[in-house]
Structure formats: C-alpha cells, structure tokens
C-alpha cells in the first residue's frame, strides 16, 4: 500500500499499443461515470441517496469494477451510513465491521490524509479485511470525501491494477472524490440552513425581514398569525397595509428609518391586531447588511409583552390605591376627598353581606361611586342587566341616573326616583369625613299599588330594538313592593350606609392619628438623644473645668498660708514695732484672711460642681426602694445636726418607688438639710414627710414650717448657684440643683410650694414602674 501524490508520474511496463487502447477505453468509461455523478450532484438533495446512487453510477458504466462509500460523522469516528456497488451480499460483513467502528487500514489512512491511497494488491496486502479477497487482481483507490477541512466520509473504487499508477486515472479519481465531497458539503450546509429556517419559522415570537422600502421579504409563522393572514399573503406586501397609515407614520417608519441608517432600535408599542386583541409589543429592529456592508434590509423582532404589561398595570393601579390610602393616612394635608369609595370600603366584604341579604330578603342592592362605577351589586334585575345596561343609550341613562338623580341627598336620608329608564330606584349617600364618595342604591323595583305603563315600555322596546316579549316578561319579573316595605328597607339602608361611612372614616382617622403619634414619638426620641448628647458634653466640660480651676486655687491658698506663716516668723524675729507698723501687719493679715476665705469658698463651689458633674455621669442602680427604710437611714446619718438644732422630723408610711438608693437618699438629705438651713428663727423647726400614689408615680412631700420662699423666687430655687440668702450658712447653692438633676435622671419630677413666713413644701415625684424613659436615661449614661 502506498500513498501516491496525484501528480506523481509512473508507467506500466506493458505492450504500449495494447495498453494505450485499453487505457483510453478505461479513461473514457471513468469520464462517463464522473459525468453521471456530476449530474447526480446537481439534482440530488439527500446525502445518503446521493452516495448510494453515485456508487451505482461508478460501476454501472464499467468505469470501476466495484465501489463503496462510507459516510462518517463530523469527527470521522463513526460511520453513519455505507453503500456499495459490485460486491453484492459479500459487502455485508465489511459493512458490519465499519458500523461497529472497526475501520480497515486503508480507510484509517484515507480519513487522516488529504491524499489518494492506493492498494495495489488487496488480496496480498490486506489480510484482515473481509473485502480484500473479492478484489481478485484489481487494485483499490481510496480517498476521503472532504471539503474545506470538513470530512464527510470515504470513497473506495477498484480498477485493473495496471491503471493504478496512471496519472490521468489518478487525477480523474481525485476530481471525482472532490466533487462528491463538495456535494456532501453543500447538502450538509443546506440542511443546516433548512434547520435554522425551521427554527425561525416556528419561533413563537414574530420576526420579519423588511426591505429598505418597508416591504415584507420574509416573515415567520407567528408573525402572519398576528395579522391573521398566511405567510404567502404577507410576503411582498408593505408594512403600512397591515398596521394602517397612522401607526406606520407615527411609530413604525421613524424607527425603521433609524434602523436603516445603521442603528439598532428598540421600542415598545401598543398594537391593535385584527384578531381583536391589543398587544403590547417590545420591538427590536436590527439592520441587515450584505457582503459589502451596505444595509439592504431590516430584521424585525417583536416580543408580545402584554401579559407582563397587564401585570404591571394591575400592580400600578393597586399600588396607586394603597398609596392614596397611605397618603391620606400619612399626610395631614391630604384628605378623604382625594380617595375613591373603593379605597375606603371593604368592597369584597360588603359584596358578600349584600349577597346574603338578597338571598334572605330579595332586596337588590348596588353601591356605586360618584363617578358611576359599580362596586357592589347584587340581585340586579334582568331588565337592567339584559336590556338597559346592554344598549349604549339606555346604559347611559342608567349611569346618569346613578350619578345625577342621586345628588344632594342628605346623609342618613334617602330619595326615591324614577330612573331615566322609567324604573323605580332609591339612593342614599355614603359620606366619609364630610365627603360624598358614593351611593347605596336599592332597586330596581315597582310599587305594588302602581300599574306599570306598558305602552311606555313597549315604546322603549321599539326605540332601542329590544325583543318586546322578552322585555315585557323581564318587566313582569321586577319585584313589586308595598310603599311600607320600601320605606322600611330604605331606612335600614340609610342607617347601614351611615354606619359603614362612619366606620370607614373612623378607621382612616385612627390610622392617621396613629401615624401622627408615631411621628411625634420619633421626634421625641430624636430630641431626647440630642439632649442626652448635649448633657454628656456639658458634664464633661463641667468636670474638666472644675478640675483645672482647682489647680490655681491650691497655689492661691497654699502661698497665702505660706505668707501668714512667714509673717508669724517675721513677727517673732522683730517683736517690737510702732503703731503704724502694727496697723500694716493687721492689714496684711486681714488681706490674707480674705484671700484664704475666698479661695476656700471657691473650692467649695468647685467641689459642688464636681459632685454635680459626677452625679450626671454615675451609673444608676435602679431598684424598688423601701422609702421608709431609706428615709430612716438618711435621717440617722444627719442625726447630729438634727439633734443639735432640736429639729422635729416625722413621716407617715411612704409608698415604694423605683430609683437609685444612694441618689434618692441624697435627694431627701438635701431637702431636709435645706429645711434645717432655712428654719424660722422664732419657732421650733418641724419637718413632715408624706407620700401618696398618683397614676404612675409615687409623690413625696417634704414640708417644713420655716421661713418660706417668696413666690417670686420659687422658680429660681432649682437654678445653679442660686442662694436665697448668700450671707447665711455655708452651702454652695447647688443643693437643689443636684436634687433636680437626680430626680430628672430617675425619670421623676420636682416642684415646690411655699408661703412666706409659714413654710415650704417640696414635692418629689418618682416612677413606680420601670418605663422606657428611665431605661433610656440609664443606658444613655451608663
């Protein structure tokens, strides 16, 4: 076996004359076979049929003794089909081998090269091939069927061994294999095109190919369906013929023109199709360019997004409704007037209620808003639903009756009227928050004591083209009520509508109030947070400054004392001095005393400030306080002062409260201390402490019989450094400030009452239950 280049030159060593004749004949036969194959190639559309018939043609004109073709898949690993000619049933074994993937050597070699493979003596060379022994002195030529690198299979023919090295033979076979390869390639390509075409044709989204003059060159099936026509009828016609001049000019042409100018265009469009369906279409236009890049058409792709749009629209409407309600609830300036009745009415619930009522009593009811929209309806009469509401003119009568005749009825009252279609109807308004949002209608009915004017209804039937018999029969079925029954029912509905309106309004108002309250609470919380931050900042400043102020005081007092000590030493060293000098000494001493007492006073103030700042920063330990025990302890600690001044302190059984034991003790110590400090000089000081429960608080009162406070100063007693009598006693003027600070932090309150010369009463309110306010203050300061 040898691979032979088709250009290789070789000669058979046989008698030349005989050989030439023989050769010429054979070449002619081969040429004939090739021509026939060429004819096949142009007409055959199926690859397998092509291969089969080519095999036959190659052997029928004795061009080749026998031939076989194996078509393979893309990777040439699997044989998809085999055909043969000239072997008869002897080919079967070989075919089985090929299909099971067992390829003979010649085929393996042929598939892997673009060259002709020649087996000069298959009988001698191919021991493992079942086909080899049928070659009987003939040689085999094998070549793969290939086009542009794509392999489609393999072709093998047998011919007398003497021709096998003839370059012309070789080149003819080569050409033959190439032709078949090309034909298979063309068929494969057209099959692919056919598949793609099928995909596009059956695509569930409309697609079309338009020429630059807006003519349909091709459309897919769904496109034609949308326009209720066939593929054939749409091809060659213009877009405007299908969508109409208006839509074409307004929407389609401008977009197509942009696309024809080279732009990819997307837009949405609402289209009324001939099948009565309005669809929302998302359109995409893509320019189609020929080989030279010139735009020669537009590919139109539409997507039916109606379902999506509908959902969106529904969502929008429902969102709008929720928003309306929320707006009314959330913003004080919005009012019920901005709402529709269906926004405030539980339509579904009321509908059920009315259905039941109709079942029980046979009273037809409708609830209609001021725009004439029917929200709730039950027990409507056939004469209305089948006739009046079904004719545009009578239907307009209905709507006008519903909206106009029902106007101006006072809430809680009702009005009976003959509707514009001559039925009796009654209306009572639904008024929410002073706004007339709709009406409850009871009807239609006829009064028992009143015969309907049949002539009038016959006229109506004629005028509007109703079937007279059916119309009058429907009239006959309209309920006939006594005036008494109507009166009762109406009163009931007037009352019902009043209740429904009031409820709806109350619900809205309540929601609105709740919202206001929520906003107010949020604002309060924000302000509280700001306040706490400010407080902490102030306390920090207070702490730092009182410290820094103390430092120089140490020097002022320290060196003033050094001076007086030095002065003493000096006095000892120079004991004798004149009167003037003695005066001077005294002056110096007095100055030093003032300096030192001033420094001492300032130190007290700073100590007080420090205590105050520390108080604000100290963590609170909130517990239930046994006030009786706490007060006993506080008074015991002050025992000395109290006994010394002969003070009478007594208290009644005090209620418990919540607070920090240390700080509450401090509050009462300060209050008692104050009472002692400002006692009346002419009588024994008596301090009476009482307590009571008021709402959420325990309120304690420390009452004395002291000097009292001028009402004009009462507000100022809690101010920092405020002292009513600066000359009296020590005190830094911080006692009550500290008290108020403590009470504030504990979530309580403090205030004072006083009558000058009779005594003062200080009230301390402390919480009895742990509410958020305290907790917040705690965490804010912890």
């Amino acid at each position, binding site marked *: 076996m040898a691979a032979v280049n088709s250009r290789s030159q070789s000669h058979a060593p046989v008698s030349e004359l005989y050989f030439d004749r023989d050769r010429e004949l054979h070449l002619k036969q081969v040429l004939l076979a090739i021509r026939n194959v060429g004819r096949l190639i142009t007409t055959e559309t199926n690859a397998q049929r092509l291969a089969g018939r080519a095999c036959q043609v190659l052997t029928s004109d004795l061009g080749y003794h026998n031939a076989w073709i194996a078509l393979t898949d893309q990777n040439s690993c699997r044989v998809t089909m085999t055909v043969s000619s000239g072997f008869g049933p002897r080919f079967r074994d070989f075919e089985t081998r090929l299909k099971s993937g067992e390829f003979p050597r010649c085929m393996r070699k042929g598939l892997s090269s673009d060259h002709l493979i020649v087996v000069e003596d298959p009988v001698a060379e191919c021991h493992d091939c079942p086909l080899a022994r049928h070659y009987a002195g003939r040689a085999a030529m094998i070549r793969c069927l290939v086009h542009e690198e794509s392999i489609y299979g393999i072709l093998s023919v047998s011919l007398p061994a003497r021709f096998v090295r003839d370059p012309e033979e070789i080149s003819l076979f080569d050409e033959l294999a190439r032709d078949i390869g090309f034909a298979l390639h063309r068929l494969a390509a057209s099959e692919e095109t056919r598949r793609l075409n099928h995909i596009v044709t059956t695509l569930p989204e409309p697609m079309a190919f338009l020429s630059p003059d807006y003519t349909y060159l091709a459309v897919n099936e769904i496109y034609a369906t949308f326009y209720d026509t066939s593929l054939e009828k749409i091809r060659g016609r213009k877009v405007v013929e299908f969508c109409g001049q208006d839509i074409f000019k307004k929407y389609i042409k401008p977009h197509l023109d942009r696309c024809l100018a080279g732009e990819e265009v997307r837009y949405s469009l609402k289209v009324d199709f001939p099948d009565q369906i309005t669809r929302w279409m998302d359109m995409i236009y893509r320019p189609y360019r020929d080989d030279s890049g010139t735009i020669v058409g537009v590919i139109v792709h539409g997507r039916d997004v109606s379902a999506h749009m509908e959902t969106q629209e529904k969502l929008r409407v429902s969102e709008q409704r929720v928003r309306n309600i929320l707006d009314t609830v959330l913003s004080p300036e919005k009012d019920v007037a901005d709402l529709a009745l269906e926004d405030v009415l539980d339509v579904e619930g009321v509908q059920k209620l009315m259905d039941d009522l109709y079942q029980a009593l046979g009273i037809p009811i409708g609830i209609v808003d001021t725009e004439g929209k029917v929200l709730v309806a039950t027990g409507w009469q056939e004469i209305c639903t089948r006739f009046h509401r079904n004719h545009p003119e009578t239907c307009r009568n209905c709507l006008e009756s519903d909206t106009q005749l029902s106007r101006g009825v006072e809430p809680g009252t009702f009005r009976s009227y003959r509707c514009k279609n001559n039925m009796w109807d009654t209306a009572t308004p639904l008024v929410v928050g002073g706004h007339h949002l709709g009406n409850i209608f009871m009807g239609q009915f006829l009064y028992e004591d009143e015969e309907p004017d049949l002539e009038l209804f016959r006229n109506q039937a004629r005028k509007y083209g109703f079937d007279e018999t059916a119309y009058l029969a429907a009239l006959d079925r309209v309920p006939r009520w006594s005036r008494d029954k109507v009166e009762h029912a109406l009163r009931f509905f007037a009352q019902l509508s009043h209740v429904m309106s009031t409820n709806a309004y109350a619900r809205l108002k309540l929601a609105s109030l709740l919202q206001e309250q929520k906003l107010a609470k949020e604002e309060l919380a924000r302000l509280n947070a700001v306040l706490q931050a400010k407080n902490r900042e102030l306390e920090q400043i207070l702490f730092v400054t009182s*410290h*820094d102020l103390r*430092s120089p005081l*140490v*020097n002022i007092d*320290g060196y003033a004392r050094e001076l007086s000590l030095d002065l003493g030493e000096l006095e000892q060293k120079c004991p004798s001095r004149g009167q003037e000098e003695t005066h001077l000494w005294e002056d110096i001493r007095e100055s030093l005393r003032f300096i030192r007492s001033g420094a001492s006073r300032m*130190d007290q103030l700073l100590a007080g400030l420090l205590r105050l700042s520390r108080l604000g920063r100290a963590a609170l330990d909130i517990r239930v306080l046994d006030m009786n025990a706490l007060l006993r302890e506080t008074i015991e600690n002050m025992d000395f002062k109290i006994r010394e001044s002969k003070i009478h302190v007594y208290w009644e059984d005090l209620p418990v409260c919540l607070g920090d034991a240390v700080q509450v003790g401090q509050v009462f110590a300060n209050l008692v201390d104050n009472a002692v400090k400002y006692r009346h000089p002419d009588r024994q000081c008596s301090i009476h402490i009482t307590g009571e429960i008021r709402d959420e608080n325990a309120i304690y009162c420390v009452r004395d019989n002291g000097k009292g406070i001028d009402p004009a100063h009462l507000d100022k007693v809690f101010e920092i450094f405020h002292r009513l009598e600066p000359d009296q006693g020590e005190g830094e003027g911080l006692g009550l400030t500290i008290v108020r600070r403590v009470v504030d932090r504990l979530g309580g309150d403090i205030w004072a009452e006083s009558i000058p010369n009779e005594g003062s009463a200080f009230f301390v309110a402390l919480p009895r239950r742990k509410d958020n306010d305290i907790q917040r203050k705690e965490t804010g300061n912890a």
Partner: protein
Amino acid sequence: MHENVVILVAEDDMGHAGLIRKNLSRAGIVNKIIHFPDGQAILDFLFRQGDPPHREAGVGYVLLLDIRMPKVDGVQVLERLKGDSELCRIPVTMITTTDDPREIDRCHRLGCNNYITKPIDYERFVRAIRQLGLFLAVVQVPDITETVD
C-alpha cells in the same frame, strides 16, 4: 527615713512643687528632692534616656506623681513604671486635684502605693504630706539594682 533616699517630684505646676517642697521640709524631711516638670522628664530620668540627670545605681527613690501633666500624664508614667520589672519596686504616691473615685481606683489598680488629693485646706495638705513622711519612714525603700543593707 533613710536619708539617702531621694524624693522625686513630678509636677507641672511650679507653685505646687514649691508647696510640696516647703511642706516636706517643714515636716522635717531633709532628703534630696529632684523636681521634674512633666511625665516625659521623669521617665527619661528613671529609664536613663535623653540628657542627664539619670537614675543612679545604689540609690533608693520614692516618687510623688501628679496626674494632670503635659506630654505624658501621671497615669501613663505609673503604667510604664509598674510594667518594668525593676522600676515597679519604686513606691509611688499620686498627688493630684482629682478626688474622682474612679480615677483613684484606676491608679490603685495600676499599683500606686498611696493617693493624696491636693486639698485647698492647707492643714489637711500638710497632714497628708506629713503622713507621706511617715510613710516614707516606715516603708523599706528598695534600692534598685543593688541590695539595700
């Protein structure tokens, strides 16, 4: 009190330093006193960094330490000393205007030996200084890097 024990005073207020010196001497304490104007200076002395004077071997020291000082404050100095395996043995007395219980607690937890608030009441201050003298007298002041006695 061992007379060779040196009293170190770290105090940024010269007036306060003067008062401390006067009152120590009035209380009969005659030991050598070295004054440092801020926390960095005392650290440099003790850790023997920067310019001299530096701590000497074989000498016992006690430290009077103000809290509020520029550069390095007293609490930081205390922290550094107590974190050092040798210097932690120097007795430290905090002398400050702060009588905030939390600050006092913090210094005690860091390992200060005594805490005196600077009172305006001069008598109390003197009493406190005297107590310090007494304290210095009874405390076995360890001699760092070398054994004492």
